[in-house]
């Protein structure tokens, strides 16, 4: 018998989800392909236009060379083949392969979003749990007001205000960028330098999510505290901390994980705004620039990569969910 929650079941789950993942990516790629074909003009015209000599002969040659004279089905197949091998095309604006452009920017974005996400989750759930345990107290009221304020604050405005206070007025933090350029730094100094640059963008990005997780955790803790098994735990003579840590937290985290997983993708979207405000050299900025310049290959490449990131995050959420709650593996809950 395969026990629910065991490594074997979760492993099987992972396999089945990876198969689904590949299928979803192919569907998205197909969708992208149709979008490109729906746009007026074709790559041959763009290329011919760029080279400055758009005579029909050159167009035909280009079409033949790139397989554009073949039926759509054949073109789609070869496009999907390229997607599978991560060949996302070429940016004529930047004169570089789209894959290179994206891979160059991805680490900065991941650093920003993953840090913000982890901090929001950690601090949010901790504050929420404390508020929930002390529901009705002064502490609870302070946390509630604070999280409502954070929740209601527009991300870009918070970013701008932080710059105004900490960079312009106080001069404590660098106002923009990823690291200080044109300076020789030891590896440790470089890490600290990047961390210093990260403080404000991470804070702005994390604020709203922190507020959401805190609110959610608070109500979840209050709900769990009223469950019968908490009464059982008290009747067992367990101490307050062992009831909270041993019985309440894990149960209270289940709804938070669900929401956090769904929002992790949106976090990348939020990064576009923040990266623009703080001139952060990540995917967000690349997207913004590509939009302004109508750099379709770059945009499509980013969309594809972001879809993959979102799908992978959902997969991770599902797996974490199943590790937390054994009932999920059998659909018994």
């Amino acid at each position, binding site marked *: 018998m395969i*026990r*629910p929650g065991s490594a074997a079941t979760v492993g099987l789950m992972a396999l089945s989800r990876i198969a689904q993942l590949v299928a979803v990516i192919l569907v998205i790629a197909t969708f992208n392909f149709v979008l490109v074909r729906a746009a007026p003009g074709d790559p041959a015209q763009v290329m011919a236009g760029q080279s400055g000599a758009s005579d029909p002969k050159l167009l035909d040659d280009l079409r033949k060379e790139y397989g554009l004279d073949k039926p759509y089905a054949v073109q789609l197949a070869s496009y999907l083949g390229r997607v599978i091998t991560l060949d996302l095309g070429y940016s004529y604006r930047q004169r570089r392969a789209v894959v290179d452009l994206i891979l160059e920017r991805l680490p900065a974005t991941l650093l920003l979003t993953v840090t913000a996400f982890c901090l929001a989750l950690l601090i949010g759930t901790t504050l929420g749990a404390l508020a929930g345990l002390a529901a009705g107290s002064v502490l609870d009221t302070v946390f509630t007001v604070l999280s409502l304020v954070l929740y209601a604050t527009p991300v870009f405005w918070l970013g701008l205000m932080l710059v105004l206070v900490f960079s312009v007025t106080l001069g404590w933090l660098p106002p923009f960028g990823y690291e200080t350029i044109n300076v020789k730094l030891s590896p440790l100094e470089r890490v600290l330098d990047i961390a210093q640059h990260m403080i404000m963008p991470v804070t702005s990005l994390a604020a709203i999510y922190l507020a959401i997780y805190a609110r959610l955790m608070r109500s979840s803790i209050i709900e769990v505290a009223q469950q*019968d098994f908490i*009464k059982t735990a008290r009747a*067992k003579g367990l101490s307050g901390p062992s009831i909270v840590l041993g019985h309440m937290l894990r149960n209270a985290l289940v709804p938070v994980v669900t929401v956090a997983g769904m929002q992790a993708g949106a976090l990348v979207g939020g990064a576009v705004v923040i990266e623009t405000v703080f001139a952060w050299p990540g995917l967000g900025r690349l997207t913004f620039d590509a939009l302004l310049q109508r750099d379709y290959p770059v945009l499509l490449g980013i969309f594809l990569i972001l879809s993959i990131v979102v799908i992978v995050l959902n997969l991770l959420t599902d797996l974490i969910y199943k590790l937390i709650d054994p009932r999920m*593996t059998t*659909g018994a809950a």
Partner: protein
Amino acid sequence: MNEAMQAKVPVLSAENLSIALPEGGDRPFAVENVSFDVKPNEVVCLVGESGSGKSMIAHAVLSLLPKSIAVASGAVTVARQNPTKLDRRALRRLRGGEAAMIFQEPLSSLNPLKRVGKQIEEMILSHQRPTPSAAEVHERVQQLFTQVGLPNPKLLEKSYPFELSGGQRQRVMIAMAMANRPALLIADEPTTALDVTTQRQILRLIDDLRRDRGMGVLLITHDFGVVADVADRVVVLRHGKVVEQGTVEEVLRHPKEAYTRELIDAVPKARLDDVRHKTIRPESLLEVVGLHKTFRVKRGWLQPPREVVAADGISLTLHEGETLAVVGESGSGKSTLGRMIMRLTEPDGGAIRFNGQDLRQLRGEALRQARKQLQIVFQDPFASLDPRQKVGDAIARGPMAYGTSRAEAMEQAKKLLVRVGLNVVAADRYPHEFSGGQRQRICIARALALKPRVLIADEAVSALDVSVQAQVLALLAELRQEMKLAMIFITHDLRIAAEIADRVIVLRKGRIVEEGATADVFTAPQAAYTRDLLDAIPGRDFFDQPGFASAAGKIPTARMSS
């Protein structure tokens, strides 16, 4: 009970205990001036209807009352200590140490995300000093599982609560309670959520453990059958006050107070051998032929779906004006059967003939017209009425949907409300203003507004207190006569079936194991399963025999797994 034992110091005593309710409630005290003792090796039952304060007392013993509710005067003494006067550490030692508690709903009383073995280990580790080694704890858990009759302890300790049956879960709860050899076990309606056969096993287990360990047991129940089976002494509560107390014999056989008498009389069909005999009219109204239904629950990838057979070739006939009881334990498919007849659940195969038509073939308007003649009343009167719809509307909407004018439908609704024993002004109120029994009356009025020919009552009185239950059953019996209704009465309570039905069908795992006139099924059951069910009805010894047989020691010692 011998004299030496009588002389022992009680493990629990309540002296003039009063528990105050927050201001603005319907009464100032949840419990008022309650005094009683539980001696070692004694089972004391607190019995009363909902709101009698019996659970409050149980919670006060371990100081588990909600923050807004406190002991106002008097005291509880548990193992020579007063829980309200203890510091945190001493209180923790008392809880689960000297006194342990089990609850009504074992599934929600166990942490769903923790293996049951771990939950018991925790009980041992938090109490025993010096802290035992992991191996010792593990061995103790295995021992406990064996003692409470759980099969395969090795596999079981790794299970999560949702993987166990209701009976197994309650056994886990009992194993946990027994972990530190408490002097007192408090059991708050420990079998109310369980099937009748499982209930018997759990009650036996508690009784055996009590005997083995000389433990005092405070058992809270609303069921006089349970009282008759297990109690040494009984405390009858009403509105937080003790109505009377004494030995089982005194209280059940010779009640001094009218209220106790009423409660005992309200037990449906106390004498099971004395059931209605009625000649059945031959005209059949509803015919179910070879009904099949299998539910498939999807499981993980690569695992076959779990199949639950709810109906495995069920055939039955309901005659004009007849009441047919469908009885069975949870999971027997009795509710699914009711829902399939209503076409609320689609069967996989078979036919449902009503009035010459096959209900399964009907579509659209024809189905709508047929449905009007079949109405259903559900178990939970709190969940089956729209909380934001006035009662009058809830009743009138049905006829209005079939073309009756609003004024006329409201007029009918008011008449029906009066007929089911409520006031005309009830029409303008919302469901939350009514008690459970009143709501069930409203649900009945709602079902009858369409003048159905068949009424399906799905555990319609199971959620009600015994005295209210008796009233609603009487109302249904009257209405059945008046409106010439045929009824399908789905219930897990065999006493209720005996009380109201002309014929009985016994279901098990989607199959009919026995079918016959009520008198035959109850006096001469053919199937072994029916006999098991009948034997498991609590309080049979007491209620069935004219001469009183003391309940103490009557329960045969047997440890069965569920």
